[in-house]
């Protein structure tokens, strides 16, 4: 195998890897924020609100990520009058899409908190917001974290799909090297290793923590 080729292109790949990491970090923050709000709205008793939240979740969970990315990318270009930076479009698309999955995770966590907790908080004079922030949310932590990290792993891998709108992250940078050198094997191995290094420890963490909560 051509080790020299990897060595020569490593700086380029590592730079792209950094972009992947940045994109992942921004999208993780975005999807968590969206997911928390939508997940909380889904459990709300106001009819229209919970149904809207539900429609949001079902639409994005029933359609593929490239469609969302293309929508955001072309939509921003049309309505904002100028081509939005690819990084922003990718981050927004990833956040909106994975936000739907994250919302389901938060919903299942919120619904698992016994109603008595909420009632007790109400009796103690806490406002609905306070109840959510100080009573419900902290109790969802143990249920929510393992699947949430699992979702983040998918998100990190899904940053590669920003390829579809031409975002230069690890996958695209690697493919450019493959196109130039016609040596796919070493390049793909390097890319795979870089993704693996990030995702595998997280997977292990998920597996270790997942088991504890399964029996109710």
């Amino acid at each position, binding site marked *: 195998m051509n080790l020299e080729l990897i060595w020569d292109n490593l700086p380029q790949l590592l730079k792209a890897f950094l972009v992947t990491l940045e994109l992942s970090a921004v999208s993780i923050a975005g999807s968590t924020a969206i997911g928390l709000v939508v997940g909380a709205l889904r459990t709300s008793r106001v009819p229209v609100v919970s*149904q809207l939240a*539900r*429609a949001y979740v*079902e*639409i994005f*969970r*029933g*359609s*593929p*990520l*490239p*469609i969302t990315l*293309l*929508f955001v990318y*072309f*939509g921003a270009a*049309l309505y904002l009058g100028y081509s939005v930076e690819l990084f922003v479009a990718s981050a927004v698309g990833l956040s909106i899409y994975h936000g739907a*999955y994250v919302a*389901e*995770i938060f*919903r*299942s966590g919120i*619904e*698992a908190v016994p109603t008595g907790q909420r009632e007790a908080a109400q009796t103690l004079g806490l406002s609905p917001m306070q109840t959510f922030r100080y009573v419900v949310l902290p109790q969802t932590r143990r*249920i929510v974290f*393992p*699947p949430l990290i*699992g*979702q983040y*792993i998918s998100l990190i*891998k*899904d940053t*590669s*799909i920003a*390829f*579809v709108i031409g975002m230069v992250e690890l*996958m695209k940078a690697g*493919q450019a090297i*493959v196109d130039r050198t016609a040596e*796919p*094997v070493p390049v*793909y191995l390097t*890319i*795979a290793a870089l*993704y*693996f290094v990030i*995702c*595998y420890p997280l*997977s292990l963490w*998920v597996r270790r923590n*997942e088991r504890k*909560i*399964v029996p*109710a």
Partner: protein
Amino acid sequence: MLYQWRSVLEYLPDFLRAMGLTLWITLLAFALALVCGLGAALARNSKNAVLRLGAGAYVEIVRNTPVLLQIFVVFFALPSFGLRMDAVTAGTVAIGVNVGGYLCEVFRAGISSVARAQREAAQVLGLSSRQAFISVIAPQALRNVYPATVNNLIQVLLGTSLLTAIAVPELTGVATVINARTLLFVQVFAIALVLYLVLSNALSFASGLLGRVLFKPPLEQVRPGLWPVRRARTITTTAEVAA
């Protein structure tokens, strides 16, 4: 506004043909995924250390690298080893192998969810371990893994959209082509979105029906669809969410 929709709807036959290809690839890849998943699950539970290690490596590598990379590996890198496939085959294989890794974990969880006493009882009754697996363990495990398996079928469907990167004329690929031709991105991608929603809801509806026929007592509401169905509150397990 209306004429824009009309000019995009002229392409409806193309959309529908692409939708057919998407469904076809989905079903083929899912069949492959079932085979890979079951094989890997059995291998990971076997007594042979080499098999266990091999299956473990397969699952971890496939689950911790992007699908898109796996598609590219099959399409661009395998030819260097003399394995040349056309884009549709390569994409089907890559997605099937990928989802197989996820299904392996689902199946393993399903097998271990069957009470140990069942296995012991089968042994006492004189069943060989193969007989015990086929007629005692598998039927009970199947019921437990069915919802997660259906979720993976939907993941296969959504994954086929990535084949646009290797120029397979499936739904997303055709939509980008029509978008480039008409520049009516709202209409084009809205139609693609609706068609994907039709596919994913049809698939989960069909598997819901199958779940009712297949199991006794029937499985209810395997995967919630887009339209509101009154249902008992389901508990989403971590395994289900992760899938």
